[in-house]
């Protein structure tokens, strides 16, 4: 019996090497991707899987609309976008976390937390690339604050007095350190997730269940290999 075709959304970037490694180990990626190729669609004849190469932040969108049946997306992206998709497995790699960070020089003012800071200062402005995560965080703590959405280089905001604190995604913490920022609160951790379209998960269940099992088995076999791939 021939295998039902599956469309799989992948993103180049941070998650790409460990994702490719895992898919190879699981036997659902048999043809090599060109390292610096510009092709956006690859078809793996042997496993009958079509791979779409898209932006990391777009993987949940392709999956939500059903343009892709499956995908690998960071939990950070999923948290920020609140898409209606199935999160099937925690793949473990690509670990990073959302943190609240403040300028090292002003750390003293945050000694008793954000509420303490607010008790002494009128305002709390939060610069971030992740407005939904930031808003959710402020709301869950009951903190009044203004969210300032930036597209990158968030670290700049406190330096030029655009914001008192930042909410950003950190993996090693190096960027924070280089900009004299210190994490004061951890909001949530995030790793790569294996996600599925909610309809495809049910209509292509047999095939997807087999892929889940293959990925789980590959993860158990090669935890070490994947680890070394992340660095």
């Amino acid at each position, binding site marked *: 019996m021939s295998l039902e075709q599956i469309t799989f959304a992948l993103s180049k970037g941070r998650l790409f090497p460990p994702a490719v490694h895992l898919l190879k180990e699981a036997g659902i990626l048999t043809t090599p991707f060109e390292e610096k190729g510009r092709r956006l669609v690859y078809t793996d004849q042997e496993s009958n899987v079509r791979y779409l190469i898209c932006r990391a932040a777009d993987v949940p969108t392709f999956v939500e609309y*059903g343009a892709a049946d499956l995908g690998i997306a960071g939990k950070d992206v999923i948290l920020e976008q609140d898409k209606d998709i199935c999160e*099937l497995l925690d793949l473990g790699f690509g670990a990073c976390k959302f943190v609240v960070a403040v300028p090292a020089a002003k750390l003293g003012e945050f000694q008793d937390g954000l509420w303490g800071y607010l008790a002494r200062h009128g305002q709390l402005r939060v610069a971030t690339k992740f407005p939904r995560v930031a808003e959710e965080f402020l709301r869950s703590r009951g903190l009044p604050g203004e969210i300032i959405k930036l597209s990158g280089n968030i670290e700049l905001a406190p330096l030029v007095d655009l914001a008192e604190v930042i909410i950003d995604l950190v993996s090693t913490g190096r960027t924070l350190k280089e900009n004299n920022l210190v994490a004061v609160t951890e909001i949530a951790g995030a790793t790569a997730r294996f996600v599925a379209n909610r309809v495809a998960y049910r209509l292509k269940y047999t095939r997807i269940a087999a892929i889940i099992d293959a990925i789980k088995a590959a993860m158990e076999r090669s935890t070490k290999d994947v680890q070394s791939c992340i660095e």
Partner: protein
Amino acid sequence: MENSGMVLMPGGVRDMLPAEARRKRELEGRLLTLFESYGYQEVVTPTFEFYEVLEPALDRGMHEQLYRFIDDRGRIMVLRPDMTTPIARFVSTRLRDRALPMRFCYVANIFRRENHAGRQREFYQAGVELLGAAGAEADAEVISLACEALRLAGVENFQITVGHVEVLGGALTGAGLAETERDKARLALSNKDFVTWQNLIATSRISREHKEALGGLPYLHGGIEMLSRIEGLISHPGAQEGVVRLRKVWEILASYGFRDQVCIDLTLLRGLGYYTGIVFEGYTPGVGYPLCGGGRYDGLLAKFGFDCPATGFALGIERIMAALEKEELPAEQVPDYYITGSDHMEVIRRARALRETGCSVEIDVSGLPREKAIACASRRGIPHILVVE
């Protein structure tokens, strides 16, 4: 910005051009005829109602999606976010004395502040409500009617997934999870976040057998045989009844001839707190969101003071049209006849005579020169062009 003659439209609403509007009307007509053939009578409710009347009965997740406004006396109004609640409201307040069961159907526009794929903010639903019948026969009738409706609409390849909210709840209680854990677990499943679900189960204090069985639950999907996999877990009486109900519904669906189209998935929840028993959704390949959904909501009418079991479903009209668009190209209607002529009275008379025979007829109302009118009509592909002298 260059003025291209476009007028701004809010997000989530849309125009339908003639071909699409015609397909929609035609689809709705066929669906209503089908519902009527099962004894469901069409009802119409107001587009907006008092917020305070509907609010206590609405699904918890619905509140942030409501369109509210204030009328000239300062009262809060809400645009209907579904048809089930208004129907429950009027049955509870006006039709209490009628013999049960009651069967109602509708086609209506619905308003929700949605941001997800495939969801407009104003969209159309066709659906049925079966009120006052608590048994598996009622559940099965509604599910099979959903199957019939999808088939009738032309969606050949579809699948209905059926679950039961009490089975899941009972399995969680039976395994020994505390109430807060159960709520978190249900929320995770409702968000289809199986990772959080597994972490919750893995870190809870329940037995290993229970952990294994519950942890794997979201990955189970199939025929009635999968129920046996969790039956051992269920000591909770409500959940046991749920399993019995699922088996019964499964059997009746086979009599309707829909067994091959139905799958069981115990993690299907369809929101929290609204449904009380059987729930289901319908899918088709190539459309990334459900075409229809429904289930049993025995607690809803009681919120209007009338304790009455109920079940029903709604189909997304635009979603079905999207599923069909892949198969056929829409066509705009062309009339059967076009009549022009110098004697307008005679033109009208001829047109009326033809319309009485069931033909669609367009007449010239622009006073076009004859050649121009004929050229225009023939360009549009109108099969018969009459010139009345």
